[in-house]
């Protein structure tokens, strides 16, 4: 799957700006970006629901703008908003979906039953769609794609509104689908989801690809490789703050002035210098925590904003 200089405009608003993006066969590609970064627009173009303003998008080598029906034969999408079919039941919705994608009729019902059990929809199989909770409706969206087992499976924020236990189940089923041979694209703004699922991550910001790589490579790309979080008993003086910043790395103080977060190349070198400077200035340290950078840090590094910020 690849896009070349792909753009999409809504009136005067640019949702995608010359996006170049590719997904290798059999991988899970996570598209990470805040709301409004263009993730859903990209997915809607890939599954032929939206038309690009310019540029090319190909799925399994097929141009989505020219041969939409062929593309839809090989892809399946779980939408961000699980809506519609208000007066149908989950079991009937899945049967319809399976029949539209020519799932072997002899195996269809078993596959549907098993998927509903796996995603804890079995008890709700005869409820009307309009009576499902938000989380159940999202599981049903995922179930459609799992029953279909397409070559290219697209999940748009698959676990929003789903409880923690349900999230883990959905993530495991997505990985299982990849192991069965599907190529998978997941769009999300949840760091945990990305870390759990991704073979590679593409960071999307304001309709453009900022960076694409494996999670370890992305974390390595951050200036420094360790994150040191320090709690002081009292707010740090301006003088100490300046001294700590001069030790190297990227140092940020909390607004209250008693918490510090530093991204440094080697924590084992930096921490003794920091404790010594703090001791000399009479600042008391209550805790020190050394971690790896998160994808949030990666996002911050490459875009200058956090995933929670508006684009």
């Amino acid at each position, binding site marked *: 799957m690849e896009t070349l200089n792909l753009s999409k405009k809504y009136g005067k608003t640019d949702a995608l700006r010359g996006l170049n993006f590719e997904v290798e066969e059999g991988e899970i590609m996570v598209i990470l970006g805040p709301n*409004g970064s*263009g993730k*859903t627009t990209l997915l809607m173009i890939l599954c032929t629901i*939206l038309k690009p303003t310019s540029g090319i998008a190909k799925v399994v080598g097929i141009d989505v703008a020219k041969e939409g*029906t062929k593309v839809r034969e090989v892809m399946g999408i779980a*939408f961000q908003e699980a809506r519609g*079919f208000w007066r149908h039941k989950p079991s009937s919705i899945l049967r319809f979906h399976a029949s539209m994608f020519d799932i072997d009729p002899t195996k269809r019902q078993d596959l549907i039953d098993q998927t509903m059990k796996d995603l804890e929809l079995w008890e709700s199989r005869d409820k009307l769609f309009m009576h499902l909770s938000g989380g159940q409706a999202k599981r049903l969206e995922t179930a459609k794609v799992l029953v279909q087992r397409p070559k290219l499976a697209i999940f748009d924020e698959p676990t929003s509104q789903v409880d923690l236990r349900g999230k883990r189940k959905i993530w495991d089923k997505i990985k299982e689908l990849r192991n069965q041979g599907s190529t998978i694209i997941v769009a999300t703004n949840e760091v945990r989801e990305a870390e759990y699922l991704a073979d590679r991550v593409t960071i999307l910001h304001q309709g453009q690809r900022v960076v694409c790589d494996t999670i370890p490579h992305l974390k390595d790309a951050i200036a420094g490789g360790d994150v040191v979080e320090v709690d002081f008993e009292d707010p740090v003086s301006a003088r100490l703050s300046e001294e700590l910043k001069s030790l190297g790395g990227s140092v940020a103080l909390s607004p209250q002035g008693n918490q510090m977060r530093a991204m440094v190349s080697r924590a084992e070198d930096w921490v003794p210098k920091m404790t010594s400077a703090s001791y000399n200035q009479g600042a008391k340290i209550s805790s020190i925590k050394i971690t790896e950078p998160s994808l949030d840090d990666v996002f911050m590094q490459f875009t200058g904003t956090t995933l929670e910020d508006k684009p």
Partner: protein
Amino acid sequence: MNRVLTLAAYNIKLLLSERNWFFLIWALFALQITIFGSLMSRLVSGKVEDYLFFYSIGLMVITVFDSGASVGRNFVEHAHEGELPYYLSLPISRRGFLAAQALYGVADTMLKTLPPLLGILFFMGRLTVLGAFFAVLALLLLGLGISGIMISMSFIAFKSVDIYSAFIAGLSALLVRFSTVFYPLIFMPNFYSPISLLSPLTYGADLARWFLGFDPQLLLNPILAAAVVTAVAVGTLSLSARIVDRIIEGVKVG
């Protein structure tokens, strides 16, 4: 083709679950004929022979019009309730999707009109197999044409549902009022009849009446009526296919 039928069947299945709604439509139809139809036929007696029958077929045409219009409304509702993106992601062509909508419209029209039509023909002693068959065919063609008009206009709804609703309400009022559904063309005032010739309902109503053996002197030429009804069905469905294919997108997202 199999997938088009599967999609149409899925929607028709839901339609069949609304039995009470159909009973209500049939009851309303019967009520309208027995009260208003009878009263009006007394008012115009002498000018139009068997006006009650004329009126009944006119009422049938309005039901067909409503049914055709509801296909267009359904299409717009699909878009706004989130079903349209799902439909557009299914492995059928846009024309196939439209064909499934049209089949759904045909089923809807048949369910709403066939039982009352057969009832009228039976009670008025005008039931013949050939007459009923061709009258239904004419009504279905008319229904497809109306569906085509409504779907063609649905692109307005992607800009504003309010404008679409207002536009369709106005268009519906004009198409029904300026037509021969309740009055034969030859009795219309001079300023009124040319406008009525612009409404596809005029041709559909007169064609159905002709097949059912109504006095041909009060009707349009059946060949002209058949040609117009067919042209409207083919033309508007082709136009709506182009619109679905080229203009309509499933959702607008950020």
